[in-house]
């Protein structure tokens, strides 16, 4: 479904991703862990088409098609969704207007009829409820003055509405209280299906107790330096990242 080969990415004059490989098949959940500044968010931004992230080498395909040549909006329409580590505040545009525009755009791209205002409102309210956000948040400016945890829940709410095929969650668990963590995890679990895949970026084992990953990868200095099953996350929790420095790179990396 998503195939990343030897991806190298530069931001301004700094090369951040230095040959990253990752295969994500339908229905799989991949967790990515790794030290601060190793390039996890850069991966998410690059995949979603953020301007300024220059691909210097490698390839990314989604269902066989070249993802990297698409505009950000077309990547979203191809089914990619990034829950931002730092969601953007947009005063002056209501959450509702934003969500409706996004949904209409994606429906249009799929040649589907636009949702009626009534159905939309109903679905939006239900999605809010599922992530424990009061429906009044639909009327507020996008993320405007939302608390850290509310912003993260708002990201998951959008994911519930947009029903993407590949969801990248960038530290959606950080800053959440214990109940909210469970709310977010339940949101994700409710969306798990044989067609939908997840890339979950996190620093904490705790989220992975709720969302059981099929694979865990360690991203360090722009590369995946170790991959394993969910037990790897436990190991990391106990030992940190330092011991990885001495490990040989996994097969497939230069």
């Amino acid at each position, binding site marked *: 479904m998503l195939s990343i080969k030897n991806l190298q990415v530069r931001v301004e004059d700094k090369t951040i991703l230095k040959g990253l490989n990752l295969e994500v098949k339908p229905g799989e959940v991949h967790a990515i862990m790794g030290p601060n500044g190793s390039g996890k968010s850069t991966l998410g931004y690059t995949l*979603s*088409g*953020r*301007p300024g992230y220059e691909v210097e080498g490698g390839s990314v395909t989604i269902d066989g098609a070249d993802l990297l040549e698409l*505009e*950000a*909006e077309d*990547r*979203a*329409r191809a089914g990619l969704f*990034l829950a*931002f580590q730092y*969601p*953007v505040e*947009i005063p*002056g*545009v209501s959450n509702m*207007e*934003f969500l409706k*525009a*996004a949904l209409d*755009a*994606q429906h249009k*791209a799929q040649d589907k009829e636009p949702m009626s205002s009534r159905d939309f409102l109903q679905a939006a309210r239900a999605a809010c409820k599922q992530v424990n956000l009061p429906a009044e948040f639909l009327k507020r400016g*996008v993320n405007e003055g939302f608390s850290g945890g509310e912003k993260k829940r708002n990201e998951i709410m*959008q994911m519930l509405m*947009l029903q993407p095929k590949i969801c990248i969650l960038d530290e959606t668990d950080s800053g959440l209280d214990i109940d909210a963590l469970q709310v977010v995890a339940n949101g994700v679990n409710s969306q798990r299906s044989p067609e939908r895949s997840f890339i979950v970026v996190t620093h904490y084992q705790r989220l992975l107790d709720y969302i059981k990953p099929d694979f865990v990868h360690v991203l360090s200095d722009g590369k995946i330096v170790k991959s394993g099953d969910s037990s790897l996350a436990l190991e990391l929790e106990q030992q940190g990242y330092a011991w990885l420095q001495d490990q040989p790179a996994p097969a497939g990396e230069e």
Partner: protein
Amino acid sequence: MTNWLSSAAQRGEAIHDWLAPRRQASLRLLQESQWPTRKTEAWKYVPINVWERAELSTAVASNIEAEPIEGLNSFDIVIRDGQLQADTLAAAWPEGLQVLPLASAEAARLDWAQATFAQVKPERHLFGLVNDVLATDGLIIDVADGARIERPLRIVNIVNGGSEAHARVLVRVGSGAKVSIVEHYVGNQLSQSTGFAEYSIGTDAELEHYRFALQSGEAMHIGGSHFDLAERATLTSNLVAFGSRLSRVDMDINHKGEGAKALLNAIYLLDGKELFDLHSNIEHAVANGTSEENVRGIVADNSRAVFNGRIHIHRHAQKTLAELNNRNLLLSDRAEINTKPELEIYADDVRCAHGATVAEIDKKAMYYLQSRGIEREQAQIMLNFGFINELVDDMPNAVLAEWLRPQLRQRFAAMEVK
């Protein structure tokens, strides 16, 4: 004096219509005028030399039609290449409304027209003088005291490629009368035109005014709308401008009677190499006047906007309330905005507020919207069109607002963020 100015003055001298005596003062001033240079404050940012250097060719035979605005139900009067189209004056005017060609014997008999010509606009505007001297055609509109005219009057001023055109409009809104007038300018090929309108708004009268300066491309236009307000008169003026090779509008609002109220909302959207220059001047000569001015624009690519907003509160104009704000959105590093408020306040008991801002597009917000599947053009409109839309929403005539909205959106959506 340069060739262009001296030729204009010579042509003016040869005109012997009923306004000829009124033109004399302007003619003398024009003869003494110098062509503006880079150092001439009033024309500082305008590449005025393109006017002088323009070689008009009548071979460009475009012929723009005056399309009606659906649902507006306006009286449409057409001035084409400076010539009033007489057939558009054949309407059955409602009681209290008189619409005459400037070049008519009836117009010559109107004392107020004699007294108004060149008296409302500022004395020394160079191209105002050119228009004073050369505009032999145009319109006279008289709204009788107490008359309330329901249907808007729309003056469609078309300038085709190759033309040099000078049109003049004089309007009297009688005391207690009410009327809505749209000055609608179009043209996009190489041409030179001046279009000045002078309004005298009577005691307790109301004028709803629009100036759509929609010339674009190579069409050069310099013009102005100028208003005298008598006691308790109300003016609501809405300016919408696209830029062109050279486009300049002056708006003067003169509070002559106490307790008058003026609102001027202006929008400009510029792209490519377009230029638009707005000079506004509010004269609070008497006490208890109110003025509010909201000027908002978007400049993209290589375009340039100039806004000079002067407010002059005279010594006896106590209790004046004057507000002026100018908000701009800059879409590219090469676009330019020259904005300058000029406040001259000689009365002590007044409230006067002003401000100017230049914002840039929030690229992070654009990306956030796009990352959810919203296309660039729409994201741009969602994020940045609100402040323009507010002024469109404020237009008293909803039909005009709805007619403009898609045109403005389209123009904005086509602009690129660089």
